[in-house]
Structures are given as C-alpha cells and as structure tokens.
C-alpha cells in the first residue's frame, strides 16, 4: 500500500536514494576529486578545446563514470559543423 502511495506521489523509495548517493560519493572517494574540482576541470578542458575547434559549450558533457572498480573521465563534445564557419 505504501509503495502504491509512493508511486502516486512520485516519492522515491529510500534504497534508490541510498544507491544514487553512494554512486556519487564513491566516485569522489575513489578519485579524490571533489564536485567543485570537477567543475573547474571541466571549464579548463572546455577552454583548451575551444582554442582549437568550434564547440557549443552547452552541448558538452564531461563526467566521471564508473566501470566496476575503475573510474574514467568521459567527455562527449560535439563539434560544430565546418560548413557553418567562414572559409578563406
């Protein structure tokens, strides 16, 4: 009954909460990178890339992903089409 009410009210059960919070905490514990440092890192990566190619900063996704006990920094950076840039 309570799970039905939770579904209706859209409230998440606490186990899901625990798992999501742990996923984030473990990434930071394992890499020793805080959320603030990760933001600074993203800004620097973006700045470096935009010096060479034309990118849309809002379309960029940079995150640390978990794969078993390994973490990787995964960046998805769509490049703007060359056709839109001026030639000559």
């Amino acid at each position: 009954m309570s799970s039905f009410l939770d579904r209706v009210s859209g409230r998440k059960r606490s186990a899901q909460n625990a798992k999501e919070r742990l996923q984030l905490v473990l990434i930071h514990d394992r890499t020793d990178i805080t959320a603030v440092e990760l933001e600074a890192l993203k800004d620097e990566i973006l700045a470096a890339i935009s010096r060479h190619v034309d990118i849309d900063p809002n379309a960029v996704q940079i995150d640390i992903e978990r794969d078993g006990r390994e973490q990787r920094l995964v960046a998805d950076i769509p490049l703007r089409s060359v056709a839109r840039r001026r030639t000559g």
Partner: protein
Amino acid sequence: MSAKIVTITSGKGGVGKTTAVANIAVALASEGLKVCCLDGDIGLRNLDVVMGLENRIVYDLVDVIEGRCRLRQAMIRDKRLPEMYLIPAAQTRDKSAVSPSDMVRLCEELRSEVDWVLIDSPAGIERGFRNAIAGADQVVIITNPEVSAVRDADRVIGLLEAEEKASPALIINRLNPFMVKNHDMLSAEDVLDLLAIELIGIVPEDENVIVGTNRGTPIALDPKSKAGQAFRNVAKRLLGQTVQFIDLDTQGTLWARIQRLTGTK
C-alpha cells in the same frame, strides 16, 4: 600443515566482523579442519566473549609477540569443537604494542600449526588494521546494506588495492529481506554493483545472532538458524566449494506466507 590466513575487516565498526570470525571458524572446525582465530583488536578484545572463551584466557597475542609464552600456550582450545583455537587480544595494551612485521612472523609460525587462521581486524584503517592484514593470504570485507558501511568498505577495498593485496571477497551481513522487498534497504545486487568485488556471503538479519552472542555460542552451531546457515556457506565457499546463495525471497508461496503469518516457520 600450511594454513590459509584470512583477515576479516570492514572499515566501519559494528558491522559484524567478530561475529563473522567466530561463526566461520565454527563452520570450518565442524568440517573437521584445525582452525585458529586471532583477535587483532588490541585494547578492545571481544572475540573471546563472542566465542564463550573469556574465562580461559591466560596468555594473549602480545605475550606471544613479546616472548612471554610460546605460541601454543596462548592458543585456547574450544571445548565444543576439538580443533578450534583462539588467541585473544591483549586488553591492557594498545595497537602500538604490535607491528605489521610482528604479525607476519606470528602468521608464519601459525601456518605450520593449523589449517586455517582467521584474523579479526579492528575497525578503522590505522595501525590495528595494518597489523591485521599484514600476514593475510586473503582479506574478506564485511559490510551491511547501509550507506556508511558500504562507503567505508569501499575505502578499505581501495587501500587493499593500493597495497597490491589479492582482491578481497565480500560478505553482506544483516540484510533484511523484508526491507529490501519494500525498496527501503540496498539489495545484495546494489551493494555488489557498488563495490564490484567477489561475493562470498549474504547473511540475513537474525535475532538469534544476539541470543548466541549472549550465551557465547556462535549460531553456526545451530543447524536451524538462517544466519548460521549463511556463515556455514561462507566457510564452504572459502574451501572452494560452489554453494548456491540461500533464497531470501520473502514472497514465497502462499503456504510459506501462511506459515510466516501463523509463526510456524
């Protein structure tokens, strides 16, 4: 004889390290193996009371290391099982009385005495933990399906990786199947997904564990206890046997539900 040396550790305190050591030891000894438990929690000894051997202590771990007695004199023999022994921790000393190299030497000496050595690690990640893992062939991490226990377990796994120890195995202790079913407790799958190490045991929450501890009788001696069964299965897996994880599904058949409701199961 050349014993296998296993250390049980957790990072966080109170998740069931001592209970696990006592029960796995009982289970291994019941299989006819010669087992020695070692309480590594110097200054906060407890394995003696959990095993019901507190009245028989003469010498302790620090006495052996400092040469006040021979190894065999500090090995208290359990009366229920002929081949189970305990080396208690010193109660009036602290962790600095022992170094990791002392522990390595002691473990090597024990190796020729028994088949299995189980070391009960103290909580934390400092000297006592370093001592407890120093001589281990295998480390078993025990955790509860709960945020702080899982986080601390992950820290310990990370430290073991940095030490280049063999990958540890995991026991998930005190799992409440009803709470898992209601999605109010991390499931064994969730914990396993987060920690990503080999699973060797899922132990359900069981009030009989407290009853057993009150009496100094590990529940692995009780053939009816579910937690006892789970610890016996851990022992079998340590011995290399393939054992199915016990079914903790709370739904079950209608008949099982009636039995539960009427308290007949």
